[in-house]
């Protein structure tokens, strides 16, 4: 039974007080989740505005469209040549000609999209969070009712619009291929959807790495690495396991390997268009690949949300640049996170900068404790030991660069190297060190090294400019050349472990097995001496066949041997190419004001030179690609290893594209390439030096 409400004096007294309260000029509305608010929230709107207004966005669109159109033009011209297209054809004949070239055009466009869109996803998302952390604006977002997942969603969707715009550039061509060229609808839709799903995954991974990285360059590199692993590792693992007889994977359909890798599925779907043959699995299995990509996107969305939340709290507590946390937040930090989800926080940095204002926590001890705890954690992660100072070298820039780690956390590099060693040992065991292993692993390592080299230096100068330390540096008597060489050598030091790992791999797999053969030569002599000296050995005529020959047959397998000269030549080409990429990256870093555009430009430049140009040349003319192949460092490195395997490098014949050349000619060419690469690098450094000198008020 409900009791009737009676007016109380409290209510009557409260009324005038309510009336006296000044009205807020902001209409208060309760926040209800709705699709429009989630999809079109303030972060999304800001991202779209900012991306749309940036000059670099226009450049990216222009370059993307230019490359697409250029490739399309080359393909069409090449295809019409092969189909004897004539301008005097009738409509029907023209239509037939369209139908003939439509599959090739479709494959070229879709292939371009699949190659570029995930890459653009990695690039676009690279600056999403780390730039905000550096600028300190992420802490401001913490003082709003926005939740971390909304921020991630806004950033994801905002950047998706850019990807959508880029992907729409190819839409007219694909529609023409469908309407006029008669390409099967499913054959168009499947690769397009695969492409979109993987671009989305790349973008989401990039946002995740951005929330954990210090600079956009690191985030982009991390995203490319993670995407590459996700694309390749499952297939490789299953493939390896299937090849082991004792494993239960032995009876698995080999098509399963293909299914695990989105690029392979994509290629299979392109095969449908080109009628390359029956796909190794059911037609609709591409849907599985799309679903798995989307599921991974969801997983990385959750991870990104967590990472962004931690970055926000860390930025609020420690100030800009502190939003890099890796470990699970301790209870005090989690308390702050829970507050951030429910209650607006006054987390903007304090005006005096002495200590950024802590979250409004009711517990009296929490803000200071939280600050101090967070500082302590940061100190633990830092390479610097509190209470101890190192001695700075005579080139301070070089000293500082050398002190910086390639990976965060002191265990990351040893663990990564350990994993690599285990994987290599497994590969050695699996392959019995036959020919192909040495080249395959070395080339894989070299490509990774070249990719990392493209990402190492573009932020070297621009990050100093962004951190406002460049001005101070330029007012010292340090020359621009000393600064640049310090940066370059520091970058080289950071990538040195990978370079050394490649060299060690070639030594262990290519040189050492060959040496084991010669171990038996003195051993035979020792046995002969023993037989001469001791009757026991002399009478035992089975000793050598039983023990020595058996041991030799056991250990003396027939591995592929790589000539040390070939290894040295390989390492020389690799070093010169890396030097060139470092130097060009430094040049871009000196010229461009911001790290992200410099990184993107350097990455795109090398992808264009090393990957896109060969494809275009291959389409245009086989002769050109043969010529270019001889200038391509990856091809050169593969050739030198191939020629030096089981041959003396200085007397071998080298299988240069479309030709066989003698060692002398090849090595002369190799040395010329190294000189050219070094020359380009030194030239780039000289221009960078002038540019940096000019920034420091010196004469150009």
């Amino acid at each position, binding site marked *: 039974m409900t009791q009737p409400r009676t007016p109380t004096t409290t209510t009557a007294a409260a009324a005038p007080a309510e009336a006296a309260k000044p009205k807020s000029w902001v209409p208060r509305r309760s926040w209800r989740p709705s699709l429009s608010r989630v999809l079109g929230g303030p972060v999304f709107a800001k991202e779209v505005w900012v991306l749309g207004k940036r000059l670099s966005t226009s450049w990216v669109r222009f370059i993307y469209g230019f490359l697409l159109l250029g490739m399309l033009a080359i393909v069409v011209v090449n295809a019409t040549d092969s189909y004897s297209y004539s301008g005097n054809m009738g409509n029907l004949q023209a239509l037939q000609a369209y139908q003939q070239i439509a599959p090739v055009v479709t494959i070229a466009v879709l292939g371009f999209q699949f190659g570029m869109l995930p890459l653009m996803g990695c690039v676009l998302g690279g600056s999403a969070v780390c730039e905000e952390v550096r600028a300190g604006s992420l802490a401001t977002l913490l003082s709003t009712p926005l939740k971390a997942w909304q921020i991630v969603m806004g950033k994801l969707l905002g950047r998706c619009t850019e990807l959508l715009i880029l992907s729409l550039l190819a839409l007219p061509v694909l529609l023409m291929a469908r309407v006029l060229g008669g390409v099967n609808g499913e054959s168009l839709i499947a690769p397009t959807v695969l492409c979109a799903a993987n671009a989305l995954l790349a973008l989401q991974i990039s946002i995740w790495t951005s929330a954990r990285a210090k600079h956009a360059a690191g985030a982009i590199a991390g995203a490319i690495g993670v995407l590459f692993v996700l694309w390749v590792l499952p297939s490789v693992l299953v493939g390896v396991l299937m090849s082991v007889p004792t494993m239960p994977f032995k009876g698995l359909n080999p098509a399963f390997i293909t299914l695990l890798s989105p690029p392979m599925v994509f290629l299979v779907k392109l095969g449908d268009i080109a009628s390359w043959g029956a796909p190794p699995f059911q037609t609709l299995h591409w849907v599985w690949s799309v679903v798995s990509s989307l599921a991974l996107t969801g997983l990385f969305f959750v991870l990104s949300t967590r990472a962004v939340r931690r970055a926000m709290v860390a930025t609020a507590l420690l*100030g800009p*640049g*502190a939003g890099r946390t890796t470990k699970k937040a301790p209870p005090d930090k989690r308390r702050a996170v829970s507050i951030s989800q429910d209650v607006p926080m006054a987390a903007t940095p304090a*005006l*005096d*900068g*002495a*200590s950024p204002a802590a979250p409004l926590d009711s517990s009296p001890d929490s803000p200071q404790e939280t600050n101090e705890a967070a*500082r302590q954690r940061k*100190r633990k992660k*830092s*390479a*610097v030991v*509190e*209470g*101890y*100072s*190192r*001695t*700075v*070298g*005579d*080139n*301070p*820039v070089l*000293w*500082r660069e050398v*002190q*910086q780690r390639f990976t965060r956390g002191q265990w990351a590099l040893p663990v990564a190297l350990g994993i690599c060693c285990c994987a290599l040992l497994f590969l050695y065991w699996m392959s019995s060190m036959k020919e192909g292993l040495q080249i395959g692993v070395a080339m894989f390592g070299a490509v990774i090294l070249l990719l990392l080299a493209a990402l190492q230096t573009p932020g070297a100068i621009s990050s*100093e400019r962004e*951190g*406002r*330390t*460049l*001005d*101070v*540096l*330029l*007012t*010292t*008597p*340090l020359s621009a050349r000393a600064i640049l060489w310090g940066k370059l050598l520091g970058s080289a030091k950071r990538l040195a472990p990978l370079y050394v790992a490649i060299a060690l791999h070639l030594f262990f797999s290519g040189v050492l097995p060959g040496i084991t053969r010669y171990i038996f030569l003195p051993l035979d002599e020792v046995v002969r001496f023993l037989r001469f000296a001791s009757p026991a050995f002399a009478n035992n005529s089975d000793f050598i066949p039983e023990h020595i020959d058996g041991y030799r047959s056991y250990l003396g397998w027939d591995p592929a041997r790589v000539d040390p000269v070939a290894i040295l030549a390989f390492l020389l080409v690799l070093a010169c190419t890396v030097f060139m990429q470092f130097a060009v990256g430094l040049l871009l870093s000196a010229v461009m004001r911001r790290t992200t555009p410099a990184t993107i430009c350097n990455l795109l430049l090398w992808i264009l030179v090393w990957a896109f140009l060969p494809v275009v040349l291959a389409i245009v003319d086989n002769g050109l690609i043969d010529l270019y192949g001889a200038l391509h460092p990856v091809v050169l490195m593969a050739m030198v290893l191939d020629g030096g395997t089981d041959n003396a490098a200085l007397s071998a014949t080298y299988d240069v594209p479309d030709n066989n050349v003698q060692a002398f000619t090849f090595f002369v060419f190799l040395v010329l390439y190294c000189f050219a690469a070094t020359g380009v690098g030194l030239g780039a450094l000289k221009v960078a030096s002038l540019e940096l000198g*000019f*920034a*420091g*008020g*010196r*004469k150009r």
Partner: protein
Amino acid sequence: MIETSNLTKHFGSLVALDSLTLSIGPGEVFGFIGPNGAGKTTTMRILSCLTRPDAGTAKVCGFDTRTHGDDIRKCIGYMPDFLGVYDDLTVDEYLQFFASAYGIARRARATIIGQVLELTDLTQKRHSLVDGLSRGMQQRLGVARVLVHDPKVLLLDEPASGLDPRARIEMRSLLIELARMGKTLMVSSHILSELGEMSTSIGIIERGKLLYAGSVTDAFARAKTSATQGDRIVVKLATSGATPSTIKQALETDHRVLKATANDEQRTLTVDLTTGEHEHHFLLERIIACQGRIESFQPEVVKLEDAFLRLTTGALQ
């Protein structure tokens, strides 16, 4: 120590500096004042060889900034308005870094760093991470950095910006100490009262034009001249005595009084004296003679702010 002649710098259509000519002698503390975007930082950047002027010449320590950048870099210490720090270094490493950049031998570094840390009161933080320092400490570290190579000239761009009152006082004491050590200081700041206290000369710049350059006393004199034509005295009267209006009539007959303003409600009397040196006791005698009961008697102090406001229009670029 610092000389500029018709220094001009354009950024596109914006005239950042318009024929700036100034001269700062050795041991001077030059306060550089101007609204935001007036050209203070551009001037300092040109003097520290970070930017090249479009026209005119600038000389520091007798060296031309266009031709002798390397020599100038050795004799100046430039502290930008926002101090970027390397977040992975300790205070000691940070100072070592710049000591090394200035070519100071390793064995001499520890002593020098110890001295500059003591001067800037950062000895306790020697092995602390730079980015863990408060803003005030980071600013002091910035000063320590510019002192590492013992430069003759210090160019300090807004050294007290963003500091709390205590840190500002400490920074001011530090700069006064540096001035005592014989350094030539060029300090830009928005906190004019501080500049007024420690500067021996000031320059006021607006829209790239130098409106005034000279001693602080001259600047005060200008402010006085243009504002009140002489000293201004504010007298607060008690309610029991004669009214301010009554006393005003009596005072205006004196030739030393330029103008008197009475406010009977607030019981105040503002008296502007004519130019020249006047003893103020004649006013007291007159007020007492008129039966006025004085509650307070305060000559108005002319501040640097007055000079600044009088000389600038406040227009933003």
